[in-house]
């Protein structure tokens, strides 16, 4: 088999993952796109390992490790996403702009996609980072 097949597929998957990371609003969808990118890399690693007939199987081993680390990363990432959701009742990544320059104040908070609000939370007085609240 021509090596180009897996390589091109991997490149396409990677680009799709880049698109997803940059274009999706929901944080979970962003994480899914990150998974796409990681899988593309895995495919590359495996393809090269087989092509080079590596005796140490470095490529496949690294692919296994990538899968493991990806799993860990998804776990932690989702923990953060859940924490954000608990604080803000939204997981839209463009709603998290506290570090913006105060002059630009692009405060178009789109919290609409998580339509039913968390009970007790409201629009005003979004808690700020550094107020001693949980992060």
């Amino acid at each position: 088999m021509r090596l180009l097949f897996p390589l091109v597929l991997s490149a396409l998957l990677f680009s799709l993952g880049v698109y997803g990371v940059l274009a999706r609003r929901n944080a979970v969808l962003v994480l899914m796109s990150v998974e796409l990118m990681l899988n593309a890399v895995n495919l590359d690693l495996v393809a090269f390992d087989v092509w080079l007939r590596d005796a140490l199987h470095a490529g496949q081993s690294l692919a296994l490790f990538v899968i493991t680390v990806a799993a860990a990363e998804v776990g932690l990432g989702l923990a953060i996403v859940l924490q954000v959701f608990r604080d803000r009742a939204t997981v839209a990544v463009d709603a998290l702009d506290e570090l913006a320059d105060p002059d630009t104040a692009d405060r178009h908070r789109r919290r609409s996609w998580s339509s039913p609000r968390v009970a007790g939370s409201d629009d005003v007085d979004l808690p700020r980072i550094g107020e001693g609240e949980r992060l």
Partner: protein
Amino acid sequence: MTGYEVVFTLLGVVAAGSAVLVVTARNVVRAALWLVVTLGALAGCYLVLTAELVAVVQLLIYVGAVVVLLLFAVMFTRAPIGPASDLDTGNRPVAAVVALGTAGLLVALLVDAFRQAYVEVASVPPGSAAAVGAAVFRTWVLPFEVVSVLLLAALVGAIVLSRPDIGTAGSR
């Protein structure tokens, strides 16, 4: 086109197609499910490439655990179960351009570099799982152990992150 190539092409089309659907679906849950398809197709690709262990691990962990975790997160964050209109930011056109650029660059680079490369799949000795396993537990045992520590750390960190009464005790 050899048989391997045909199969790989089919699997590749499935993988790429469902990946497209992952990043463009209007429905979060559907996106997660298309991700399952993508990951599964990739596992098939691994099989074609005779990387059996990786394929199985992919299915077990990615499809079995990661996607489930993602679906759990989708539920916990009250994602709308039906189609939602605001899943894409205004960044879409720029992101598309950047993605196209990345794709074009990578593909051109790879094609230019590996035009003549050929993987002798047929001549790979069977039982690569055993060989890979041996490699992991011999040559790569230190990264293996480090990764397991990493997993532990991630576990602990996830728990700390998600439980409000742990980690801030003493500052309240």
